[in-house]
């Protein structure tokens, strides 16, 4: 099965909430949102993020903006104040998530980003 990085069909942003982090994953198109709804489940994300040992993952839907918000509980090993990691605040979790391999959807052409207006 051929895979593509999640970044092919979505963009994202992450940040900290104490010792928790959140990542919002935003599909570029409704077809992508529909695919992510089926594929990007809490358990799949937990599997991908296993090395970082989140205690729990919870997914929330924001259909009007084609986004799924993931709360990653206790993933920051102390957070802004106590973490010894370079990325103490989870700023790069979004970049990491966008590298996640996903099975290439047959209708991937319907999920690609629109032309970038600033290019």
């Amino acid at each position, binding site marked *: 099965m051929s895979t593509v990085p999640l*970044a092919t069909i979505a*963009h*994202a*942003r992450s*940040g*900290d*909430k*104490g*010792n*928790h982090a*959140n990542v*919002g994953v*935003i599909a570029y198109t409704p077809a992508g949102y529909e695919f992510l709804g089926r594929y990007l489940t809490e358990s799949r994300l937990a599997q*991908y*993020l*296993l*090395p*970082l040992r989140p205690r729990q993952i919870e997914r*929330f*839907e*924001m*259909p*009007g*903006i*084609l*986004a799924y*918000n993931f*709360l990653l509980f206790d993933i920051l090993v*102390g*957070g*802004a*104040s*106590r973490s*010894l*990691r*370079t*990325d103490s605040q989870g700023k*790069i*979790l*979004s*970049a*990491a998530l*966008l*590298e996640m391999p996903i099975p290439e959807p047959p209708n991937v052409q319907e999920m690609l*980003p629109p032309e*970038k*207006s*600033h*290019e």
Partner: protein
Amino acid sequence: MPVIRVGNGAGFWGDNLDAPRLLAECGRLDYLTLEYLAELTLSILAHQRSRNPQAGFVSDFLTVLESLAPVLAVQPQLKIVTNAGGMAPQTCARQASAILSKAGLGETLVAAASGDDIFPHLDELIGSGESFMNFDSGLALGDARSQIASANAYLGAGGIVTALSQEARVIITGRIADASLTVGPAIHEFGWSWTDWNSLAAATVAGHLIECGAQVTGGMFSGWTAGLSLDNLGYPVAEISDAGQVVITKPPMTGGIVSTETVTEQLVYEIGDPAHYLTPDVDADFSQMHLAQIGPDRVEVSGAKGNPAPPRYKVSMAYCDGFMAAGTLVVCGDQAAVKARACGELILSRLRTAGVNLARTHIECLGTGDTLPGIWKRNNDALEVVLRVGVHDPSRAAVERFVREFSPLVGSGPPGVTGYTGPRPSPYPVFAYWPTTIARERVAPVVEVHTAADWATTQET
């Protein structure tokens, strides 16, 4: 239809010092907000105030205000709302007023909004039944009580509305919810009721979107390419109508971009359950929102719903938790990754030999995939690797001993070690986060308004 333009020129303490002036000069603003307080900023400010009674607020604001004084002089409509007051809104107001007076703006009405600092009353509050349980961990305050360094309630927009009703033009607050910096002006301008939940939610979304400054105008954007100019980056402006319509934009002829994509990314930034974005003003529901590109760098934001504000204020406490430091070296050449890891282990083993056993340590070999080990593809072939070692210990002396171990490795470690010039890393006190809540009625917001000329001559109490 009446519309106000609220621009935010600072997203955190340490943000670009020129941005507020540039935004005010070309943003056609009614209000300029400046947001400086992260979750733990107040504990750092409390620490500074303990060493210097004239400190305890975000001093960047004074530099910024000096640059804004000429703009205030020529834009009579412009008002400034900021949480730069930190632990010491009155001290900040006094020093800000000295700057305004010196610039010929002594008649300006300056407000200090406080009451968020509950630390002085902590024992009394515990006695009256507040348990201050940590809402993340579920732990009781217990033994941590003696280590608490600061305790601040997140107040809402009320103090700002009071100050504006007394015609204050520069409003300096302590801890309030970030979005309330925007909600306050909207309530004042449009006379919204405190139970007009949908309008309060709309203004809260606007505040949430602009509170981090350039993060909504192209900063941090996943769609970054080298073709997206972030030079002369425009800081954000929220247009808010009396009917609760919101448009996010930025001044013309500035760098960056405001698109549905940049706004969506900021909408999801640091939120939990989107159906319950809680502030002291409203329980806002972001879950059914829509965005529309209605022009170049103009995005309409709609669909926020409001529910009654939560019965308790969130409280951010910080407790003293020892000392931390992190240092780096650069390791180059053949086997750079292996050598870097060996250097990290060597630092810790030499400390153990010297009798220093640190409570927590963390070694990262940056360039090999170590920022997120197990997530990034491992790269052991780099010819240059940054070794970073971080430590945490209750003893300052132990951490001070640790920071001395980096330079010696240049001559007493493997070959190819460099990057040791510059000052040693400094150990710093750790203020750990203790999120909790308090009943609203136990907190009393206080607003004080004087002319700058009067503030500048008042004495510390």
